[in-house]
């Protein structure tokens, strides 16, 4: 009960702050939005890598699925959404909520398809499979013309006779058309409402019997299996839940920048999220949240030393890993006596 109350308070606080969000400097506003999206990505990856101990390197792939599904639907079916829910603030909120849900579900379903066969693999093998999967997603999108292929996707022309095209058609004359750009639905409220829900979900999951099963699978798979825990099932549950929130984060990201290319979801993005989880401490909620905030802000702070920025950033990571290998807030894991 108490945690539901906290969630409710968090949502109200976010809603109130949102009323003043447009007074913010746009630069800071952008950074804050990215902080929120990165918290969602890092906490959901923490569920897979940190708590359950399955090394996934494909989080950007799920994010890409969420982003492209959401952006594609919101433009190709813009007239449908508009006529169903209207274009008022409540109407767009409902539309966005549905889009995020579909984005999350699509990523979750793909997560299930990837997870069921590959989660029987362990450690390095799983990392390679998930990495390969994310690259397949990215390369596939590069080949899909209807969502902009490698050029990226910003919106679609819809002609009165129903033709949909990314470019203006030169040989079509006399037919009315309208350009539907990717709607910029994402604002402070949605990002942090979703962040709160994501943290609430992961936290509750970890405090349930499911959570203990996750830790058991991470600690010792053989023992967990001997206890009658279906280890593959729990690994898949963690993987699919993580993928769902990555999809939601992708949707939030897409409707904020309103222009996405496959390169936004490359290997480096996956690594970036992974670094947040490792830096914060595998399996530590508070640590991962703080790491997500720090690592989003740090590159901006370091803009002052422009050309040395990435060197300083990498150096900080190396120093931190040498001095605190378990991460900022991570707990040193106990090894069983063998």
């Amino acid at each position, binding site marked *: 009960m108490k945690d539901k109350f906290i969630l409710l308070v968090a949502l109200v606080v976010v809603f109130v702050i949102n009323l003043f969000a447009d007074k913010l400097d746009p630069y800071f506003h952008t950074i804050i939005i990215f902080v929120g999206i990165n918290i969602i990505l890092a906490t959901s990856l923490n569920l897979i890598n940190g708590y359950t101990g399955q090394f996934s390197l494909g989080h950007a792939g799920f994010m890409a699925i969420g982003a492209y599904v959401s952006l594609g639907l919101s433009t190709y079916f813009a007239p449908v959404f508009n006529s169903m829910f209207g274009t008022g603030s409540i109407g767009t909120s409902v539309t966005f909520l549905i889009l995020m849900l579909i984005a999350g579900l699509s990523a979750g379903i793909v997560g299930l398809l990837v997870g069921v066969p590959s989660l029987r693999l362990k450690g390095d093998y799983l990392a390679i499979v998930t990495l390969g999967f994310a690259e397949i997603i990215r390369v596939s999108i590069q080949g899909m013309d209807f969502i902009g292929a490698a050029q990226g996707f910003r919106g679609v022309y819809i002609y009165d006779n129903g033709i949909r095209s990314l470019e203006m058609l030169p040989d079509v004359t006399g037919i009315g058309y309208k350009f539907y750009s990717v709607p910029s639905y994402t604002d402070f409220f949605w990002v942090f409402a979703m962040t709160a829900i994501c943290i609430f979900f992961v936290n509750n999951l970890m405090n349930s019997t499911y959570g*203990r099963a996750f830790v058991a699978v991470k600690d010792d798979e053989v023992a967990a299996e001997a206890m009658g825990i*279906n280890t593959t099932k729990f690994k898949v549950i963690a993987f699919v839940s993580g993928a769902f929130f990555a999809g939601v984060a992708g949707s939030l990201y897409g409707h904020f920048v309103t222009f996405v290319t496959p390169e936004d979801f490359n290997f480096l993005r996956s690594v970036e999220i992974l670094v947040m989880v490792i830096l914060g401490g595998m399996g530590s909620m508070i640590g991962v949240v703080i790491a997500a905030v720090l690592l989003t802000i740090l590159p901006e702070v370091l803009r002052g030393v422009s050309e040395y920025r990435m060197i300083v950033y990498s150096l900080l990571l190396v120093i931190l890993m040498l001095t605190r290998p378990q991460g900022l807030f991570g707990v040193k894991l106990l090894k069983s006596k063998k």
Partner: protein
Amino acid sequence: MYVNYGAIKAIRGINIQVKEGSIVTLIGANGAGKTTTLRTISGLIKPASGKVIYCNEDITNLSADKIVQRGISQSPEGRLIFSNLTVLENLEMGAYTRKDKYKLKDDLEFIFHFFPRLKERLKQYGGTLSGGEQQMLAISRALMSKPKLLLLDEPSLGIAPLLVKTIFEQIVKLNRETGITVLIVEQNAYLALQNSNYGYVLETGELIIEGDAKELIQNEEVKKAYLGG
């Protein structure tokens, strides 16, 4: 029953029987296939051919979690406890497959009756326990699923001799008081046979001798090979 690890034939046609309510020991040297036999029974490994029959039911192809639900519970070799869960949480994991509304308190009382030492350690992390305590925890955790058949893999491995004695005493007590069937795999042949009803001797995947535990201790061959003359 035949079990292969890839191309390696680990178990080459053995036939063992565990009578309800008895304590049965499986002894043999390293690599004889003792652990493999246990893991096959509990469904962690699938045999190449042969069957595992339990209470007149063929459970050979059931998954490990289904087998636990049937009432077979294993305490794995090397005390594979969950180091990053507390003793209490470890015990709760043991009750994971139970569908009935059980009373945790009653179950804990039951466990403390046999292993009172765990009571003091309830909030401690599994990884901080001593070897003997970890073994007690592993056995207790296996008991939490209320099994009818308890499989113990090397309960004496790497534990102080005094504690080994205590653990075996408790196993016998458990068997007497609850009628639970126990199948023990041991290298400490003398101690194991002393505390059981029936014994099997495995050598490189084959069964060489079987018989009443009391007789096996007297058996010349067993004496020579496993009991130190």
